[in-house]
């Protein structure tokens, strides 16, 4: 087991290296330069001034030299400084140590996605199981339709409608942001309630849109398991339907979900731009999107590298999870 883990971890290094190289080349292939945002359409910008800026950012060197310099920094875990006008270290933009932890972008996105993931699993798994055990019933049809409506509905549109209803007409919930203006003076429980109130709409919108995938996976894997011989045996033994489904079938049906959860690990730090913009949430999606628009290479590379690392880690975790959950894989080795 340990040798297997060590082997997998070692294998990650060349993969990660390859991913960063390709990412670096591709973002430099995209037309445009970081100096564009600073200087484009500014009547006061001369070509000489532009050259000075490019030299300042090290953009006058060949791409491979730039990659080498980047790599040299990255092995010391230094993601460099952003090319945007504020020139802050990239890590400070992602994880701003001068702010309380709840205001740091990575934390905000991570917590939001984690909460959303838990909510989705808590709802999707029961839905999936029930629609499998009650296949082709009215309940199955209604839940299937509902989750697909959620899947198909554009999240920005749903978000705006909900804001209009709950924020403007009913005035029950705040519209955007993650806390109120008077947050700092609220007592502890007031702060908690304030946070929850701000989270209701965003979490609902994310969860509603993502129920389909997980519940359908759960449904189909449950359907497959129910038809297995050992389930028939369990039933023949006279076990109650509850025991058959939840003790015997459920565990085995969870296997594909392990893969799914493993794959969603990198998603935990990658926010959605549309969603974050609509709700005015300062998360990673916004940061990355603005970084791409401004051709802020160090920032893009940092987020891509972290994302690539987490993807590989997620795959590894899924494999390990499989080994733990499924004796066939463990012994088959």
């Amino acid at each position, binding site marked *: 087991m340990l040798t297997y883990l060590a082997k997998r971890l070692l294998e990650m290094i060349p993969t990660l290296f390859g991913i960063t190289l390709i990412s670096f080349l591709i973002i430099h292939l995209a*037309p445009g330069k970081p100096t564009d945002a600073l200087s484009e359409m500014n009547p006061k910008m001369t070509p000489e*001034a532009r050259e000075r800026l490019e030299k300042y950012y090290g953009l006058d060197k060949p791409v491979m030299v730039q990659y080498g310099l980047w790599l040299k920094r990255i092995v010391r875990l230094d993601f460099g400084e952003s090319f945007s006008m504020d020139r802050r270290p990239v890590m400070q933009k992602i994880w701003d140590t001068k702010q309380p932890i709840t205001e740091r972008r990575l934390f905000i996105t991570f917590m939001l996605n984690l909460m959303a993931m838990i909510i989705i699993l808590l709802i999707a798994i029961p839905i999936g199981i029930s629609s499998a055990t009650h296949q082709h019933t009215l309940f199955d049809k209604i839940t299937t339709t509902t989750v697909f409506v959620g899947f198909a509905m554009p999240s920005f549109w749903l978000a705006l409608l909900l804001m209009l209803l709950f924020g403007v007409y009913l005035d029950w919930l705040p*519209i955007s942001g993650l806390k109120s203006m008077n947050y700092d003076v609220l007592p502890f429980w007031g702060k908690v309630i304030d946070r929850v109130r701000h989270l209701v709409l965003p979490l609902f919108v994310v969860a509603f849109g993502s129920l389909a995938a997980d519940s359908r996976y759960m449904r189909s894997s449950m359907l497959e398991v129910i038809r297995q011989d050992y389930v028939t045996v369990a039933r023949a033994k006279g076990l109650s339907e509850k025991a058959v489904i939840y003790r015997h079938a459920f565990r085995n049906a969870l296997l594909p979900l392990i893969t799914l959860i493993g794959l969603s690990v990198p998603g935990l730090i990658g926010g959605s731009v549309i969603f974050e*913009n609509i709700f005015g949430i300062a998360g990673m999606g916004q940061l990355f999107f603005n970084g791409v628009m401004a051709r802020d290479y160090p920032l893009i590379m940092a987020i891509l590298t972290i994302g690539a690392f987490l993807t590989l880690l997620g795959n590894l975790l899924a494999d390990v999870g499989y080994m733990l959950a499924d004796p066939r894989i463990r012994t088959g080795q």
Partner: protein
Amino acid sequence: MKRTVFLSALFLLTLIITGCRQRNTGTAGSDVKNGDDKPAYGDAIVEGTIGEPSNLIPMLASDSASHAVSGLIFNGLVKYDTDLSITGDLAESWDISPDGLVITFHLRKGVRWTDGAEFTADDVLFGYRTIIDEKTPSAYKEDFLQVKKAEVLDRFTFRVTYDKPFAPALTSWGSLVILPKHLLEGKDITKSDMTRDPIGLGPYKLSKWVSGQELLLESNKDYFEGRPYIDHYIYKVIPDPATMFLELKTGGIDMMGLTPIQYTKQTDTAFFKENYRKYRFPAFQYTHLAFNQKHPWFSDKRVRQAIAFGIDKKEIVDVVLFGLGSPATGPYVPNTWPYNPNVKKYEYNPEMARQLLRDAGWQDTDGDGIVDKDGKPFQFTILTNAGNALRKNTATIIQWRLEKIGIKVDIRTVEWSTFINQFIDKKRFEAVLLGWSIGLDADQFDIWHSTKTKEKELNFISFSNAEVDELLEKGRRTFDLEKRKKAYFRIQEILAEEVPYIFLYVPDATPIVHARIRGIRPTPIGISYNLPKWYVPKILQRHAMVP
């Protein structure tokens, strides 16, 4: 078990709903009795913004959000008055030598940085030296590289000398170059704390900046023009315009810029009329259709004029801007001093357009509705940047109008950076639909002079006219307003005759502000110039902010 879960869920829900903010629906409009409407200190104003500021040192930032905030924190030596004349700010007065080469600024005495240090001429010299420094990545260097010599005569006198008279010189000494020397000397300005936590001397000072969310500014009680009435100015980042509008509706923000449809339709309700005031004035920008002068078809003046006659500018303003703008006739904003109202205007005239095309040899010989010449149909592409709905709609209307005079137009939108690098810089375009922000100074040397046509320069349409070149030079080399006016008037006549651009429209800026906020006086330069003088009468104050 199930019951307790249900009950606690219900309890939580009740808490959440009842915990909602008391919305202040008290009317803020006209029912304040006479005498209560006096200026008072206190309250806060919340402005919504789509973009977050990036850097609060003015010379290092080139986005409008950064300048909007740093403009409240820093002042310049001079500033524009409401009639666009130049007036003193940190400089009490200034002398210009008769040859226009030497400007001597006499600074205000007793102005203090918010950390208590006194503002002196050394701070100006320091700012100047910083901006021309090789290591300072500033997009605004060029005006300052024209300076031959800058010197401090005494603590409150600062003198600059130029090689040649340079009219934009005076206004360049705005807030870009006023920096606290005692805090920045010997430091790398790009890495300084000042970029996110500046010490200034303006009406407001920054007290908190939460990345991606909001900037909280507090009034500078010792501001040299008097303490601002409104205690707090909050700049709230809401990247989505629709969300921002909903926040306005619920009172989450007090001030934002409206889109044309929001201005004309969505705020045309009793609620908005009672609680908000809308303002409208021409923005300092214009939208135009520019032709590549090197393109064989567009090098013929008659073709450009024909297209100008084939476009109905009034219609574009009415449809795209809902009437919130005015047709443009040249590169200046109507009712400002360089604007020449008496140039050739191209009223919509499809007959004239067809005639001009015929004169230039374009005729529909094969009967397909598109004019052709030497067997080639007149078909070209209007390029514009993606993500700007106003421009795309404008292009669509132009496409429809030009089809009526026998010209087929394709529209292509491209992402900004790609647009600039692959098409503008390489001059790979036939016509582009773009906008310019107009500086408050009339000098447009870089846009129209024939030497400014190299890659990355701004005369990307390769416009070349010897008389315009000469007039541009003349206009920037004198401080005499009458002489400058004459030069710029003539330039506009030539541009109207030659049609290198079709000047389409000057849009209006349309901010909305909560009605409890008083003291707003609209002028040609907008409303925010006197923000420190805005106030909320005591009984209407809404936010009792904690320090």
